[in-house]
């Protein structure tokens, strides 16, 4: 049983972790919607320091409105960005207008 399903509204956390993380700064704090569950993968934060026995983590694809990511009215309202986010970087949020 995964924590999120396609269609769920989520916010990307800003965990402030040091070292090798795969959640770029531009997507932290942003709210979007899960489009797809991708399965479980070894955590790159563990792999980067040679730990290959860490717990596998759930990975999701999450969609965001480009207009919400970048303050620019010239961006067409329907344009979207989809990025992969590991479970521990996500929290559930109530429905938001700022999600595709």
């Amino acid at each position, binding site marked *: 049983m995964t924590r999120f399903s396609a269609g769920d509204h989520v916010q990307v956390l800003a965990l402030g972790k040091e070292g090798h993380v795969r959640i770029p700064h531009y997507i932290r704090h942003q709210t979007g919607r899960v489009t797809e569950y991708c399965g479980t993968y070894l955590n790159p934060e563990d792999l980067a320091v040679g730990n290959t026995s860490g717990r596998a983590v759930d990975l999701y694809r999450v969609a965001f409105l480009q207009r919400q990511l970048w303050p620019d009215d010239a961006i067409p309202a329907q344009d*979207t960005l989809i990025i*992969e986010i590991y479970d521990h970087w996500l929290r559930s949020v109530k429905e938001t207008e700022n999600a595709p």
Partner: protein
Amino acid sequence: MPHDHQHGEHEALIIEDEAGNIEAQIIIDALQQVLIGKGLLTAHEVTAAIAKLESPGLHLGAKIVAKAWTDPTFKSRLLSDGRTAVQELDIPVTEARIIVVENTAQLHNLITCTLCSCYPRSILGQPPSWYISKAYRARSVREPRQVLAEFGLDLMQDIKLVVHDSNADMRYLVLPEPPHDVERYTISELETMISRDHLIGVARGVG
């Protein structure tokens, strides 16, 4: 200019030029020289490994797309499980998952990797140098329509643009729209019409 601040307060510095990491190249050259000198490696083994890395390429991507255009059941398998469908064509896929995203009359897909240079290498080989450049990585998410225009693609405002940042474990291929007269062509003719840029999404129309 005095250098009186600690680098720890910044994000990690990446030492590279647009083509690659020069410092790493020097270290690798020295390491290879030592390993060959000690008889642990031969120059032939190194070139064979490079040849293996470079043997995938656009021809495999074009084969996948032409098959999808001409075989609807293959296309639906490709869109639901890219890795398994690609392997049907005897292409050894080493990536965990391949996600194939389909362009339509109303939708255009663009692939990028903002953090490094993730790319479906076991299918398409090594990415073009611009794909690895900091400029493409930053601008493909921040102002993708301008980037497309610089590639000669003026995407209509009413076509939805979806940018896929392949920041983690998935790898992506764009399935372009077939030419409107697709049935007029043989498979091999279709394959020659497909470019690497179509499969990344910086080009759109085929034929």
